[in-house]
């Protein structure tokens, strides 16, 4: 039965997955175990996305299924889920740019791969990144941007991190529609990711997670 929830979520079978969750809840099962299975299902979705079997709509749909499951399970939760996060990442779309589709895909993938993502949203000023890095002690920073003017905002954000004396304690990745190795050099980032999976690979490499 446990395996069923994992695979129905992995196969994006919304109705079936919700039914299993309801049945298991009414059978009095530990809600945390249900959440654990649901998360395993999402991990498989992430793997299928990584191997190009799944695409962005599949991620969006799986996220929606997870949201509905969480809504069902949450009222039954008596204790907090144990966090098993493998690293903190501060993420945001840089100043002057409000595009967020790409950012949301990467943060989703980082999340299902066990990272704790602190998403600062869009049009994020340099100082906000600096403050959040200090406050959270994150070891990775992700800068997203779609416009050509995001190149300069990225550069200035990395400069601000440097000026705050934090550059040696964080790795910075950048990404977005027009980002390339040339842009990486220009901004001073440690690496750039061509797609969401590249972001996950970088984060795993930097945190030593396999």
């Amino acid at each position: 039965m446990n395996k069923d929830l994992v695979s129905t979520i992995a196969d994006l079978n919304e109705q079936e997955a919700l039914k299993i969750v309801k049945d298991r809840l009414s059978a009095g099962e530990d809600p945390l175990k249900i959440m654990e299975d649901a998360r395993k299902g999402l991990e498989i979705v992430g793997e299928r996305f990584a191997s190009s079997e799944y695409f962005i709509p599949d991620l969006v749909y799986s996220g929606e299924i997870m949201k509905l499951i969480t809504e069902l399970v949450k009222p039954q939760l008596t204790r907090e889920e144990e966090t098993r996060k493998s690293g903190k990442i501060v993420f945001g779309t840089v100043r002057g740019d409000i595009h967020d589709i790409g950012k949301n895909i990467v943060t989703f993938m980082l999340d299902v791969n066990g990272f704790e993502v602190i998403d600062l949203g869009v049009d994020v000023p340099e100082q906000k990144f600096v403050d959040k890095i200090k406050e959270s002690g994150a070891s990775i920073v992700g800068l997203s941007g779609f416009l050509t003017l995001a190149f300069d905002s990225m550069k200035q954000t990395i400069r601000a991190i440097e000026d705050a004396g934090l550059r040696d304690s964080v790795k910075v990745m950048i990404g977005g529609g027009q980002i390339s190795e040339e842009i990486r050099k220009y901004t001073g980032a440690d690496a750039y990711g061509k797609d969401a999976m590249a972001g996950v690979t970088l984060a795993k490499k930097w945190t030593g997670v396999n």
Partner: protein
Amino acid sequence: MEKQWVDMSPEEKQEEMFNQWLSPRDPEGNDLKFQSPGAQKDYIERVTIIKDAIQMKKLPARVPVIISPSFFPCYYAGVTPQEAMYDYDKLNMAFRKFLLDFQPDTNIGSIGPGPGRAFEILDYKLYSWPGHGVPPDSPYQCNEGEYMMADEYDALIEDPSNFFITTYFPRVFGALEGLKMLPAATGILEIFGVAANFIPFGLPPVQAAFKALMEAGSEALKWIGAVGALGNETMALGFPGTFGGFTKAPFDVLGDTLRGTRGIMLDMYRQPDKLLEAMDRLTPIMIKMGVSAARMNRHPLIFMPLHKGADGFMSDEQFKKFYWPTFREVMIGLINEGVIPFPAAEGHWNSRLEVLKDIPRGKTLWMIDQSDMLEVKKTLGTVACLAGNVPSDMLKLGEPEQVKDYVKNLIDTVGKDGGYIVCNGAFFDEAKPENLRAMVDFTREYGIYE
């Protein structure tokens, strides 16, 4: 007797549309007076090489070169995007300077920035513009959302115009909230229908909405007066416009404007039939939108910014089911009326190329961004003229020599047998001026067919 429009074949209609483009008119409807015989010669030469590149029947005299910027002309001229949207003299100054300094073969026109004050009067929500949600020196950007709910497909399908006016407008324009009280126009029948259905027009919220519409309309008129004047002025100097209007792929109409990315992606799973039906409903409307603009502006090129069909945004199966059929149908509808669809495939479209090439030869123009250009040439490029692929990062950070080498390679490979127009790959705000100059000047010098 001259052949009537309805009796013409798509090829004859296309020829006629090109003829209209070749013989521009002034706002009074008379033949446009060029500034000099040389300007007229330039104009005709420019349209002709673009026509030859698109039709793929014979080699153009040279490779055309165009530039498609977003707010670059403003930054280049020292005008902020905010100034360009509120001060039409500054707007025109920037776009005139851009055109005359770089001398590409077509004029993008100053239509891009739009009338900020009109958006302000309407309290437009779909975009944030400089001073309204983004800084004064940022370009405007889209705020995607669910402006149509998941359960509203039937209302859209039943009567799209009524849905737009009474449901979409009140959500996307704060000042038009009153329009949701409007009756359907088709209820105004007989003397009774007039009496009853005019009651809402007396209500204060409806009247406030109409007041906002009138004020925004006056502002838009002021704006188009300036934009049109620059268009005519530059046409008289020998620069044809880049396009005659725009339309969209039905999937993007729903995904960008109405349901948002998240909404439409969920609909692909939860209510695929409704989504398909709505796109079918929008298809003739999108065809008509493009054809009307092309005829009104005597310009056959109709731009189609493509968004959610790019690689990764859906699987190839989903692309073939959801994106392609109605996108193709819109293109065919335009082609049948002699209009040239001008889709911009921003980002990567490598996995779609085999599907895209299922269109009639010599009847479309494609702006290609980062797709593998040699693959594009081998597939889509066998039936369609290609433009673009000069990368944004190179234009901003590279050196003129690099740009020249890149353009040379494009001309040597993609442009070898015609069917190619040098152009940047994606709309851009920033670039080194010397790189754009290198792109244009080198093409002029090197891109001459023997």
